[in-house]
């Protein structure tokens, strides 16, 4: 009983989509093994890129460090938005699902109206979960002007430029002068905060990861340096999964961001990847990478 309460105290709930449009809204405990995600012991999916990769990484962290509960709310969506809207409706009608220590919103169709309804549902929950957004839900959080309600965003460089562009409704419309490679990342970070388009904390995934707390750069992580990771689909998702699990295990957000950035890089280094390496090769290295980083090897 005590053990279950402790696991609940460290619970992580991930909300996202799968690339199989026929999947209805499903929710339950998550397990991961050999590249396959299993929900409630019933439904199985390959942990390729996207939310499934995030879940695989989070599972490996919680299993080996922290022991918290990992739950998911998922639906199939091929980009038309049906699955995402079914999830939004489900969450609004079943708010107990989002009673959790850490709540992550991930690959979801950006819909400002539904975003507003989710925020209203969250306002009724006490204590409010720690809110993390990445991918489509980070886009809609920015578009709705409510980015500052979130505790953590995990943008890559292209997404940071979008957050920095107060006029762009989507990264596709980010203005060229903000996308230019000569931009210093911190200039983009400052601009995102100055327009209220950043979360309280930012973990910017880049050649040098930037750790930002309330607009202040507190750390940069550049080692191990594995340039191929940028091209491998899912490396951003695993980073978000690792940091979310570390925050759920009651680590302070700043420490979790630093540890996650080092662990993701170390997992990449241990996998010895090429540009063609699948993300599951990195996920299986996460427990070793975390141990190595915690042992002070980096």
């Amino acid at each position, binding site marked *: 009983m005590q053990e279950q309460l402790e696991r609940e105290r460290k619970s992580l709930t991930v909300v996202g989509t799968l690339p*199989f449009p026929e999947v209805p809204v499903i929710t339950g405990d998550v397990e991961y093994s050999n590249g396959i995600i299993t929900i409630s012991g019933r*439904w199985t999916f390959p942990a390729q*890129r996207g939310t499934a990769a995030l879940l695989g990484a989070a599972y490996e962290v919680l299993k080996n460090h922290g022991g918290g509960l990992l739950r998911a709310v998922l639906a199939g969506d091929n*980009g038309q938005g049906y699955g995402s809207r079914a999830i939004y409706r489900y969450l609004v009608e079943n708010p107990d699902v989002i009673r959790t220590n850490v709540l992550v919103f991930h690959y979801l*169709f950006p819909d400002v109206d539904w975003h507003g309804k989710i925020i209203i549902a969250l306002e009724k929950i006490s204590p409010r979960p720690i809110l993390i957004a990445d991918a489509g839900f980070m886009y809609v959080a920015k578009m709705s002007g409510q980015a500052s309600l979130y505790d953590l965003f995990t943008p890559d460089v292209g997404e940071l430029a979008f957050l920095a562009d107060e*006029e762009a409704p989507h990264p596709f419309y980010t203005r060229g002068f903000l996308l230019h490679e000569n931009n210093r990342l911190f200039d983009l970070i400052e601009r995102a905060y100055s327009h209220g388009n950043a979360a309280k904390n930012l973990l910017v995934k880049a050649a040098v990861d930037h750790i930002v707390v309330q607009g202040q750069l507190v750390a940069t992580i550049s080692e191990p340096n594995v340039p191929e990771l940028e*091209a491998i689909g899912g490396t951003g998702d695993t980073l978000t999964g690792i940091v979310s699990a570390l925050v759920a295990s009651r680590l302070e957000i700043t420490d979790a961001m630093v540890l996650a950035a080092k662990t993701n890089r170390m997992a990449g280094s241990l996998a010895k990847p090429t*540009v063609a390496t699948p993300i599951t090769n990195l996920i299986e290295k996460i427990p070793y990478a975390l141990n190595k980083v915690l042992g002070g090897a980096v």
Partner: protein
Amino acid sequence: MGILSVFKRKKNLLKPEQSSASEGMLVFENTSEVIKAERVLKDAGYNVRVMGPPPELRTGCDLVVVFPIVIQLQVIRLLKAEGLEPVKTVPVSSPLLSPVSLFHVKEFGDFIMVRAANMKLSFEKGSGLIVNISGGGCPDVPFVAAQMIGKTLWDAPSPREIGYTLCAYALSLALEHGKSLCPRPQA
């Protein structure tokens, strides 16, 4: 217990809804096309509306169709099937914004990565084989990536044809730019 074995296809009951702070405008040659486009999109279940354009877009046709911009690709495809092509598609929030036109190219030994906005496409130099796709945040990205990886730049389906969102649109630009960097091998 097989992957997806427990699911059966269900008819989608939800219709796309409006995203008021994230809308785009379709600009046409003439009012007649605006009216036809509105009818086509409304018949397909989209919550669109017709409005007057901002001053910077006034070119003679004083009406535009307003729609949720994230599904730009889906809307354009639907209109094209009906013989309607807008002259311009722009965000309501800032009508002078243009789609991304800046590409970043990185080489990794035998591979090249092309980035367009938030989307990255990587392929083998000689063969043009697509080996990875990363970035993006709309839900069609994992779906589109699964259809493209393992095919060449020329054989892979275009994200414009199989995707629905602006992320897919950005990926299609990366694909086109990749083709321009890699001569097609002779059969």
